[in-house]
């Protein structure tokens, strides 16, 4: 314990709307090989423990963790699965190293969403089986309700939400890994088909396939392995009520708590002026505004107008989702958080190509597990 932990290797494959020529195992393998090469490690010899994030129903396989070790080089090693977001997996790897028992741990997340023929029906199985599922509603209705409440309580407008879509999909044009880059206008977004009023179709992230692998190391190994280790300053995660009937709708107390946990470890209480840029949840456009407020970057009601004014653009005061976010690189199921952390690592290493931010030192990644959950995680990283 009390050791610093760093990300020393990153690898990814995708992200693409369809990947008919590869299986999920091949996606994982590709990302893993790149991450191990990036870290300069041999998984069979060097990596001591492995973590995957996955959910059975997304995989179409019961007890999916059976199929995780082979393509990661983890056979006969301590490996386990977390049913959570990629950032939960990252936090798990962080804890494993912090115990002092492990020096080098790999974490993996993937999405093969294009394989799921009935994804809305599968997602509906996450609703309460007694109280909610009999209504036979597409799970987007939870987001519609939440967006409505958020706009009502904070005074944010639909146009401000649409500005998030315009920004993120524009940012994605500079990210070679993002398939949903586009140059849209506010009208393009607002005139799109409705999804769950007031939420529009173009304010929801489309799914994509891909995999992300990261290699984490303790301080000693990190300094030996990497010229550009990215340090984990803090991790936090939290749940609110799973029940739609008793949860808080306008604010995100679980993101607030997760953020405070991470900030406490990182040694600050207010991220404004400390965190240089952020990759935050935008599975739906309004979530970016809501999350930025929960994270403490803005007071409730501030995020909308500031976003519309370009405060969160790539050249703004606080660049948010420079990668394009989920709206730009796609909804990667439980790999989503790792994809956000990936962008933070690339920026902190100075390897983000044409979208590179100047002089960044501290970045934040935050994720949400999607409707209907109240589960999210936060990490603060530094170079």
């Amino acid at each position, binding site marked *: *314990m*009390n050791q610093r932990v760093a990300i020393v290797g990153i690898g990814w494959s995708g992200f693409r709307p369809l990947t008919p020529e590869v299986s999920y195992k091949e996606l994982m393998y590709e990302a893993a090989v790149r991450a191990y090469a990036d870290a300069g490690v041999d998984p069979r010899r060097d990596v001591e423990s492995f973590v995957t994030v996955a*959910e*059975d*129903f997304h995989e*179409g*396989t*019961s*007890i999916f*963790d*059976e*199929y*995780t*070790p*082979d393509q990661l080089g*983890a*056979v*006969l*090693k*301590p*490996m*386990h*699965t*977390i*049913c*959570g977001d990629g950032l*939960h997996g990252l*936090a*798990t790897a*962080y*804890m*494993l190293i*912090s*115990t*002092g*028992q492990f020096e080098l741990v790999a974490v993996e997340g993937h999405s093969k969403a294009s394989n799921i023929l009935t994804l809305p029906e*599968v*997602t*509906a*199985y*996450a609703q*309460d*089986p007694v109280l909610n599922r009999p209504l036979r509603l597409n799970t987007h209705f939870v987001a519609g309700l939440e967006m409505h409440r958020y706009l009502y309580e904070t005074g944010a407008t639909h146009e401000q939400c649409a500005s998030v879509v315009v920004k993120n999909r524009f940012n994605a044009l500079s990210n070679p890994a993002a398939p949903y880059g586009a140059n849209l206008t506010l009208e393009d977004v607002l005139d799109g088909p409705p999804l769950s009023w007031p939420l529009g179709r173009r304010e929801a992230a489309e799914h994509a396939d891909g995999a992300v692998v990261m290699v984490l190391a303790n301080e000693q190994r990190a300094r030996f392995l990497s010229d550009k280790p990215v340090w984990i300053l803090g991790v*936090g*995660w*939290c*749940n*609110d*009520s*799973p*029940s739609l009937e008793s949860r808080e709708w306008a604010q995100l*107390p*679980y993101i607030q*708590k997760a953020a405070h*946990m991470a900030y406490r*470890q990182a040694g600050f209480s207010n991220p404004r002026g400390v965190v240089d840029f952020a990759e935050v949840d935008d599975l739906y456009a309004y979530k970016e505004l809501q999350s930025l407020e929960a994270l403490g970057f803005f007071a409730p009601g501030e995020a909308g107008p500031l976003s519309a004014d370009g405060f969160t653009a790539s050249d703004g005061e606080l660049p948010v989702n420079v990668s394009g976010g989920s709206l730009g690189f796609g909804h990667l199921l439980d790999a989503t958080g790792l994809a956000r952390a990936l962008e933070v690592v690339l920026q902190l290493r100075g390897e983000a190509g044409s979208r590179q931010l100047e002089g960044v030192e501290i970045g934040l990644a935050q994720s949400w*597990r999607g409707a209907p*959950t*109240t*589960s999210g995680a936060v990490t603060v990283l530094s170079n």
Partner: protein
Amino acid sequence: MGLRKVAVVGAGMTKFVRRAQETAKELSYQATHMALQSCELSMDDVEAVCLGTAPDSFDGIHMNGEYLSDGAGAWRKPYMRSYVGGGTGVFVPIQGWYHVASGLFDVVLVVAEEKMSSYYPHAQAAFLTIFDHTTERPLKPNLLWIFALEMNRYMSAYGIAKEDIARVSVQHKRNAADHPAALLGDADITVEDVLNSEVLAWPVQRFDVSPVSDGAVAIVLAAEHVAKRITDKPVWIEGVGWSLDTAHWTNRDLVYPRYVEYAARMAYEMAGVKEPRKEIHIAEPYDPFDYKALHHLEGLQLAERGQAPQLYIDGVAARDGDMPVCPSGGLLGVGNPIAAAGLMKIAELFWQLRGEAGARQVPGQPRRGLAQAWGDLMQVGTVVIMGR
């Protein structure tokens, strides 16, 4: 650099039953409530929650961990669900261990829950989809078949008789007769009863197999400085280990569980155990089938390969023997709500090492115990060593 010490300070469990009236959330709540009461803590004292539950398909709920979170006490708390199939029950305390050992938390609640009866008509069908979608699923295999293969291989490799394997079932079910939460305790069962039970998939017969069950177990973990304030009798987690073998189970020799050996060696090393057969005073190997207890005792280095039946023949494994095996009654006797069954073994060691196991108490003030679980495609071993 020394590891941060982690103790079990409280435990609670529901009755294991075939068909619980309670929902999965209610079962989790009951076990959690009992565990907290046992150490006089409340949810306000709990800093994080770890949940173990096996396939979502039992409940038919996607992201079942999220659904169960409030029942397990995770409202507005850091909460994660870990998952290694059948090995989850002994993995989730390992997850709790690294939460505390990392230094991030001082008090962590660990909950394991399983409600298998929701699956109608029988939970066995949930296992059809654990197999490879291309090479195996078209054959429509089920768990009884593949374990029949493994049991057959074990028997034929070492020339072990069915009578000697049946002794395991008899001893565990007899032990369970003293467990107030047990589903299949039977003080009068005999080897003949096991050998005369219905054949399911030769050589597996009905009494060779643990029952499908519902139930939940919870324990409370605490860091050293807190544990000593909570209780005079903390039980320390001295070693943990886990190992996951290849998914290609058809390419492996099923006669010996190498993954259990690897997990055990990791745990022994952490606990500083050099001679397991002398230093482990109580063993709770995973026993969903009677032959599996034997198989696992060998993987755990507590018996020579092919020699584990002798522990039962000689009485070494009996409750008053030199190394009692499954004094709780194990899965064969107490029941097998999958994830909860593994954590039941941890709770049993907690009670045994504190001298609170009542009629099941192992004599001689045992100092150290080991619990192990196994799962996936005969593929994962999870081991926890506890001592006082």
